[in-house]
């Protein structure tokens, strides 16, 4: 486990004092170590760990049913914010009064995507932001090159791994090219950028969220040596808006990207 020491100690203390909540929600980015932290805590508590393999309503029902028949166990529900409303409703009663003195830990990336009725029954903890030296430590233990660029972009160890799948200088230069030319070329040419973006799981293309992050980073660096900083600030604010829309479940990423190109061109051309 990298980092998260304060949160870990806080939760462990709560357990020692007998005040660890029966139902806990851990909020943090994908790959921020929510599952690892939960597993580690369960081991330290000396409890059995039950993990929901998926968040389909049938699985959730069978796991909550299992919870009524076992003792000294912790049910871990990963990615609870991706549950359907029916699945969320199926755990409402169990979360209100967890049976047999067991515990439930649910991990989520977006707390707003969880039903308020579920939220109100849990004690919510946020994963700590990774410190620079913690990420560097992780990076040094696995990789050797491209450290400077990746350290400026990644906020979790998982993100480091995602960035390192790509040739970072090439990725950076591609995004620089986009920043410099997206408002210069014709609209039909600008929409062609979509061909380099992965809207599904294409391995040879850049994931949309990483592309947006890299775009913001390039805008920030360009802004430093440029008089018209407003130009880039608008670019960053538009990109941030689309980054937040990217969190909507099942959103059409290709359409979102095209709209981003059009919005960006409209502002930058005016």
């Amino acid at each position: 486990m990298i980092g998260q020491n304060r949160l870990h100690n806080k939760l462990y203390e709560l357990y020692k004092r007998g005040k660890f909540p029966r139902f806990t929600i851990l909020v943090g980015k994908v790959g921020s170590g929510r599952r690892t932290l939960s597993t580690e805590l369960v081991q330290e508590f000396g409890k059995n760990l039950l993990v929901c393999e998926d968040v389909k309503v049938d699985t959730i029902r069978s796991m909550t049913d299992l919870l009524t028949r076992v003792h000294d166990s912790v049910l871990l529900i990963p990615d609870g914010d991706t549950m359907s409303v029916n699945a969320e409703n199926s755990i409402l009663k169990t979360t209100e009064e967890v049976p047999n003195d067991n515990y439930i830990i649910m991990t989520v990336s977006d707390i707003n995507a969880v039903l308020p009725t579920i939220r109100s029954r849990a004690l919510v903890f946020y994963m700590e932001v990774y410190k620079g030296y913690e990420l560097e430590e992780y990076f040094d233990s696995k990789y050797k090159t491209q450290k400077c660029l990746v350290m400026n972009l990644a906020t979790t160890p998982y993100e480091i791994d995602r960035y390192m799948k790509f040739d970072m200088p090439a990725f950076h230069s591609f995004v620089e090219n986009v920043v410099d030319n997206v408002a210069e070329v014709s609209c039909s040419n600008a929409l062609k950028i979509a061909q380099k973006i992965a809207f599904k799981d294409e391995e040879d293309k850049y994931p949309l969220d990483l592309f947006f992050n890299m775009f913001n980073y390039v805008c920030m660096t360009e802004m430093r040596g440029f008089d018209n900083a407003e130009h880039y600030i608008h670019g960053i604010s538009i990109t941030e808006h689309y980054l937040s829309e990217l969190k909507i479940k099942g959103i059409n990423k290709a359409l979102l990207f095209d709209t981003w190109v059009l919005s960006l061109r409209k502002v930058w051309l005016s």
Partner: protein
Amino acid sequence: MGIILKKGVVKLSIQELKEDIKNKTTKSFYIFAGEEHYAQKIYIKKIAEINNANVVYPDNLSDIYQSLFTTSLLSMNSIYVFFDDKDIISNEKVQSALKSIRNGCVVVLILSKQDKRSKFYKTYKDDIIEFNPMDKDVLTRHIQKEAELSAQDCCALCDICENDLGRILLEVDKIKSYAEAKNINHSDAFKSLLNSKDIYLSPKDVIFDFIGAYLSRDIRLTFDLLKECEDFGTSNLAILSLLHTNIKQLFQVQVCESNNIEKTTGLTQWQIKCASKYLGNYKSGELAYMLKLLHNIEVNIKTGLLDESIAIHDFIVNTI
């Protein structure tokens, strides 16, 4: 394939069932399956006729179970028809008991679908009589017995009714009544009913035609085809996604100033050719607005602000 449970399991085909009926030696239990329900009804009627029996449709087997085995002065011959009866399908004891029901009674089990993993199917798979839709030639002969229609018209009628004999005969009856009322021949009556849409046409997947009509800015056709898409059950999100792809391609081709469209837009020759058909129907600004509106509509659907059922209508009304 069929089943005789009285004298041990023997495989039967529809042909053998016909012979049974011809020889007036029907069995005690039959299992029917398949889409041709009208033919099933005809055979049940025939079985009832030769047994001098009534056709009864009980809710479940337990309602009439006793009367299958006991004979009284008032007992009448009956053909009991069950649809997917769970007592018969799941209970092996009941299945074997049906081997020794009283004379004059026949049990017919109709399966709406065959679960190939079930024990019942594995046990009786060779004994199920399947009534599949008939060949067009056979259907044409049936139609021509009833009405004076050409082979071509018969073929068209078969296609419209998806080779369902029941539907075909209903439509033939309609044609005959119309022809008689209007004092015209059957062929003209068929054409007239077809033109006035009085012969029901099943909705087809017209999503690509709908997209074409929308990009051609043909308002009436767009709404007609949208209704057909809805009747067919096309997903609204699938329509939105296809609208996005086509509008984007049209936009890219329309605003491209270069001679080498393929290189500038990254589209294939075929995509460019398809998009070129609709050039100029919308202004470039309108196309850009459509893309943004599509995105907003999608976000609103996914966040629960807009009902999916009115989303496409909302989009078309605002853009066409």
